[in-house]
């Protein structure tokens, strides 16, 4: 982009312009993540959502697989983060109408639909909702419960204001009734509001409109919309959810009783080449169903769950174990069968399903409730979206993308992230959001920091001379706590505790509005400690620490009392006892709060150089992106050549020429002036911490030290060397990579082969390697299709356990079947046998349908060998203090929301070092890691926690007990006037507190978790002791 244009644009402040850097369309998890990443790397963001609130589909989910985190609980803190961010402007209930201009200079017209509510006046008090006479099906609860014509979209909505449904409002329809106007105290209702048009000027656009679920009503054969007890999986998410239509009681719609027999039907609307169906696989349904089964069994351990499925596609990280977890539960049946919905039984509204099994033939069985595992469709208004933004769609109606860069659309300056790229789960949507941040950062690098502003907090109040004033807020968490614990009684009790000067309650303390209310109370009541009796610090502590800062008190004056996970969730059937326990928990927290000290976090300067380890596509892509964004980058590769495993891959299913791509990428990497490549490289030693790492390397025999601020680990993976099926004994048994090389080299034996057998899952999905290697099914189909191109007469059989051609890869699986490639399923306890037979080989496999042994001749047997983690992993983990999972892949900080971050700050992850993945996925993740890294590199400082250890010199007896237990090397002896004493290097301390427990004299102490603080809690744990 022309520099002077940027200047002109940014300097022109003469008129009142809505000037930003990026427009993000869609406020689901992908749009939210992208907004935060961009806002944190120096850009000003407009975040537009057509719904009345941020949140997208993720806000409707009950829990998220495979960790079963509460979906809203991990998403809603991000709503507040967005709303408090000075660089994010949220525009909800709005649609983009027009986009003019070009990359770097877009002019966008946005229409805000009338809410019939003045957003700045509405307090979210819900009085209008109480008085509104019109009941409507609640859209957020999938119409399973009732709401009113005027309502708030959901309790934690951002913004937390009502809106009026024009279709049902009596005034807007017929000019009758204005009750709401009369009861609204702040006069926030304006039933004559008109649409408002806003013009925005931005440099780039990100489309993150998400998806819609397949609507089974369109096809009447599922009984949906006709039979009351047939629901979709999204309906079922709401049914499971404590904020759902039945307050979290697992009931069925027809008679609100507990269903004892539930059936799930997989692939509804997916993998179906029929009118109204989608040919592709929606990629998420297998695992979300397993999640729903686990959750349903959690609700009611006695119920029977039956899952009618096709292939089980557990291709994601930890999915295989998750599947096993669901399968092992009592009274859970996974049945591989196509099904049809039979009939609804009039007396009890049960639903019958007809299915067939190999053993028992066709059966018809009755169920209390049937859940349709519906697939993912493009957004309903996708045509309009495509026209407005002038982008092309693919044949399935999703955004057309380039496998070499799945973040690009067909229009320059317009990017795409999330499920609009194609079916994606939450981590993929988050990764592509961060990836968009990286690419928009490349495009708009020159304007970075021009429009953005720093967050300004009020000055921190000095409370050292104040008497203790503890505030206690008790949160209902909707029905989660409120239904079990007697909240008014708890509030009343809290107010009587020592040092408590105010106690109050909130429906959802984590809603933006209520969090601000708490902040106000702190100021108005002069509170200097805050105890929140609510959920867990794991998800919500940062948010409420921030709330304390907003109120001008030290953030470490915040104390969480977990009365949800530790109380209401586990004691839901003993309400009185739960209330007593909640009192105990609050009393303990209040006692601890009295001891809390104000702590200082400290800012550390950031070295703006990046280090990337691993020179495959992942490492090269992330290195190049950071270099393009103006940072110095070192790229380390252990081999003498860049390219990694991709050097052995020649083409992909979607037709990408991998070697051509690799050549281009390598050239760009070598040519970039701020990117230095070190090959034949070994890391010898690492010291330092986020912002200031020092890595010693030996490259081509030369030792050097690299100072850097962040590091990206992209050490890749390796192909497993099989130990079965005659591999290594017969040279006619090869792996897929060898086959691919021979196809490209046009080897004689491949060209002439008449019969070829492929065997899947070689070396994984087994006890010692309990994961799916994700890429092999696609790889087998890819090579099989290539072979059919060479020789259409070749007999190819693929022996598989589950074909996992997820997403759009399903089309190629179908194409392969159409081209007469035989797919033969086997069970793991009855694997195929490969034997030498004459000049060739013979493969024997049990035929599950006919119950006989199938004997296949083979000129070549091709093994789809597992993807193994790289053997350099443990060294990297040790050097950069990051963890690995039991399979030997690296463990990200949070599987859903921090998929490329590590728990240790300043260290990021991408590519197959994380988990096996296809090249497009690797590229996306590599950009994602670059995007996350730049949120640190683009800042001047990073902040380190205040909860670190310190030493009271006078108590230290120099025994060294602390030093020997600290793996972070954060403690050392220093000479002091009192002799040699232990001293903590605060920036290296991670606050685990091992040293604290080892110190004989209590000289070393972990701030925020001192003996005093913890003893205070222990002393209040047992009430008898208090009163006696």
């Amino acid at each position: 982009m022309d520099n002077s244009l940027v200047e002109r644009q940014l300097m022109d402040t003469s008129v009142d312009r809505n000037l930003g850097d990026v427009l993000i369309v869609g406020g689901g998890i992908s749009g939210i993540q992208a907004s935060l990443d961009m806002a944190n790397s120096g850009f000003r963001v407009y975040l537009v959502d057509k719904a009345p609130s941020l949140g997208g589909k993720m806000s409707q989910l009950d829990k998220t697989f495979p960790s079963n985190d509460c979906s809203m609980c991990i998403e809603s803190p991000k709503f507040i983060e967005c709303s408090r961010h000075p660089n994010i402007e949220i525009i909800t209930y709005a649609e983009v109408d027009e986009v003019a201009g070009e990359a770097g200079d877009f002019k966008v017209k946005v229409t805000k639909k009338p809410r019939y509510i003045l957003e700045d006046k509405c307090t979210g008090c819900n009085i209008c909702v109480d008085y509104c006479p019109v009941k409507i099906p609640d859209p957020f609860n999938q119409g399973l419960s009732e709401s009113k014509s005027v309502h708030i979209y959901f309790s934690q909505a951002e913004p937390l204001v009502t809106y009026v449904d024009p279709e049902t409002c009596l005034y807007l329809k017929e000019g009758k009734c204005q009750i709401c106007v009369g009861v609204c105290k702040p006069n926030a209702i304006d039933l004559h509001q008109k649409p408002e048009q806003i013009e925005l000027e931005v440099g780039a656009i990100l489309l993150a409109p998400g998806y819609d679920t397949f609507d089974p009503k369109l096809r009447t054969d599922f009984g949906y919309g006709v039979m009351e007890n047939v629901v979709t999986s999204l309906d079922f998410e709401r049914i499971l959810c404590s904020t759902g239509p039945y307050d979290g009681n697992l009931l069925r719609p027809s008679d609100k009783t507990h269903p004892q027999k539930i059936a799930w039907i997989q692939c509804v609307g997916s993998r179906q080449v029929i009118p109204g169906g989608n040919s592709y696989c929606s990629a998420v349904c297998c695992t979300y169903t397993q999640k729903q089964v686990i959750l349903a069994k959690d609700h009611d351990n006695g119920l029977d769950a039956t899952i009618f499925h096709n292939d089980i596609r557990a291709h994601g990280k930890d999915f295989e174990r998750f599947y096993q977890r669901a399968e092992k539960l009592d009274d859970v049946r996974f049945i591989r069968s196509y099904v049809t919905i039979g009939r609804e039984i009039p007396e009890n509204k049960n639903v019958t399903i007809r299915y067939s099994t190999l053993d028992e033939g066709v059966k018809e069985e009755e169920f209390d409730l049937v859940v349709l595992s519906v697939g993912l469709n493009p957004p309903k208004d996708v045509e309009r979206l495509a026209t407005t933004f002038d982008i092309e769609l693919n044949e399935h109606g999703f955004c057309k993308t380039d496998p070499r860069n799945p973040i690009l659309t067909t229009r320059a300056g317009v990017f795409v992230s999330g499920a609009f790229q194609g079916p994606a789960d939450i981590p993929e949507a988050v990764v592509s959001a961060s990836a968009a941040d990286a690419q928009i950062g490349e495009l708009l690098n020159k304007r970075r920091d021009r429009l953005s502003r720093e967050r300004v907090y009020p000055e921190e109040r000095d409370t050292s001379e104040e008497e203790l004033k503890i505030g206690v807020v008790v949160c209902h968490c909707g029905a989660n706590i409120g239904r079990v614990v007697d909240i008014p009684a708890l509030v009343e009790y809290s107010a009587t505790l020592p040092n408590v000067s105010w106690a109050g309650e909130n429906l959802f303390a984590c809603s933006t509005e209520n969090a601000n209310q708490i902040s106000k109370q702190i100021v108005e009541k002069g509170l200097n400690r805050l105890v929140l009796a609510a959920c867990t610090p794991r998800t919500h502590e940062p948010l409420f620490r921030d709330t304390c800062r907003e109120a001008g008190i030290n953030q470490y004056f915040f104390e969480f009392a977990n009365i949800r996970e530790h109380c209401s969730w586990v004691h839901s059937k003993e309400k009185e006892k739960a209330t007593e326990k909640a009192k105990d928990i609050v009393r303990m927290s209040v006692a601890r709060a009295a001891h809390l000290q104000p702590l200082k976090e400290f800012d550390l300067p950031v070295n703006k150089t990046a280090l990337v380890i691993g020179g495959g596509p992942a490492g090269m892509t992330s290195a190049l992106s950071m270099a393009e964004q103006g940072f110095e980058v070192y790229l380390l590769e252990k081999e003498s050549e860049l390219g990694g495993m991709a050097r052995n891959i020649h083409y992909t299913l979607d037709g990408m020429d991998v070697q051509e791509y690799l050549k281009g990428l390598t050239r760009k990497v070598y040519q970039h002036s701020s990117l230095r490549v070190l090959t034949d490289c070994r890391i010898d030693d690492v010291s330092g911490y986020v912002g200031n790492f020092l890595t010693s390397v030996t490259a081509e025999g030369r030792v050097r030290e690299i100072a850097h601020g962040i590091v990206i680990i992209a050490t890749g993976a390796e192909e497993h060397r099989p130990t079965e099926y005659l591999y290594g004994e017969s040279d006619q048994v090869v792996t897929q990579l060898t086959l691919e090389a021979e196809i490209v080299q046009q080897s004689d034996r491949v060209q002439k082969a008449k019969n070829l057998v492929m065997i899947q899952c070689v070396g994984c999905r087994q006890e010692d390697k309990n994961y799916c290697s994700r890429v092999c099914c696609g790889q087998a189909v890819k090579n099989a299709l290539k072979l059919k191109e060479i020789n259409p007469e070749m007999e190819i059989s693929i022996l598989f356990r589950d074909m996992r051609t997820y997403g759009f890869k399903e089309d190629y699986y179908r194409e392969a079947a159409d081209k007469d490639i035989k797919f033969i399923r086997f069970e793991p306890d009855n694997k195929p046998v490969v034997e030498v037979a004459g000049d060739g080989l013979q493969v024997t496999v049990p035929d599950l349908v006919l119950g006989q042994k199938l004997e296949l001749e083979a000129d070549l047997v091709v093994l789809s060998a597992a993807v193994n983690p790289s053997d350099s992993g443990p060294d990297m983990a040790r050097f950069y203090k990051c963890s690995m999972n039991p399979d030997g892949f690296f463990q990200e900080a949070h599987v859903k929301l921090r998929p490329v971050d590590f728990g240790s700050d300043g260290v990021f992850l991408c590519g197959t070092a994380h988990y096996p993945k296809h090249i497009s996925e690797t590229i996306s993740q590599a950009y994602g890691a670059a995007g996350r890294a730049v949120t640190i590199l683009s800042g001047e400082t990073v902040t380190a926690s205040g909860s670190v250890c310190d030493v009271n010199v006078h108590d230290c007896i120099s025994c060294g007990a602390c030093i020997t237990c600290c793996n972070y090397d954060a403690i050392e002896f220093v000479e002091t006037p009192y002799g040699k004493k232990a001293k903590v290097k605060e920036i290296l301390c991670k606050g685990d507190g091992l040293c604290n427990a080892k110190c004989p004299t209590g000289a070393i102490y972990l701030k925020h978790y001192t003996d005093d603080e913890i003893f205070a809690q222990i002393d209040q744990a047992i009430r008898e002791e208090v009163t006696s």
Partner: protein
Amino acid sequence: MCTGRVDIAFVLRAFSNGADGVFVGGCWPGECHYVTEGNYDTLFNMLFTKKLLEQVGINPDRLRLEWIAASEGSRYAEVMNNFGKQLKGLGPLGSSEELDAKTLKLNLQALTKLIPYAKLVERERLRVRFKTEQEYLEYFASDEFNRLFEELLVDKLAISQIMLLLREHPLSARDIAKNLGINPAAVSKHLSSSSRLGLVSFDEEQKCYALAAGA
């Protein structure tokens, strides 16, 4: 904060406050969220604490350490229910031990006073690092460990108990032994070593021991 932060003193404080049991839950070995593998430190600390509790006549089963991952809600519930049942079986602290409230209190006080010394001993003589839980269990059951424990801690603990007991009023060696459930020969040994150190004095008239002035 890591489970390794759980101090012996926390456990003793809870028992002193009348808790009938103390539960410590940690991450599974090999799944440390830090890189310190601090759960092995926890394992050591808690096995060590059990040993100390046992030494003062408290059933070590009242302290329970379990590995439970964040995702194992049902396992957590199972473990807690099981522990609750077990504690109900044991009855209130002291009852199954046949310790009266006073002795119980004294014993826990004696242990608490011993913590700084115990930590030093742990660091200097007892600390080991193994890769599996089994190895820790075997170590704590080994003759080697028990010899060291006996040699380094048992006498100290007894002296600590005697001192606390004498703080209330002078007692004869026999009464001390009876009160503490320690054999009289050992008590005599401790008393003579303590009087050599000037910690206790023998009142010839009363035929009993008392804390030395200033001790």
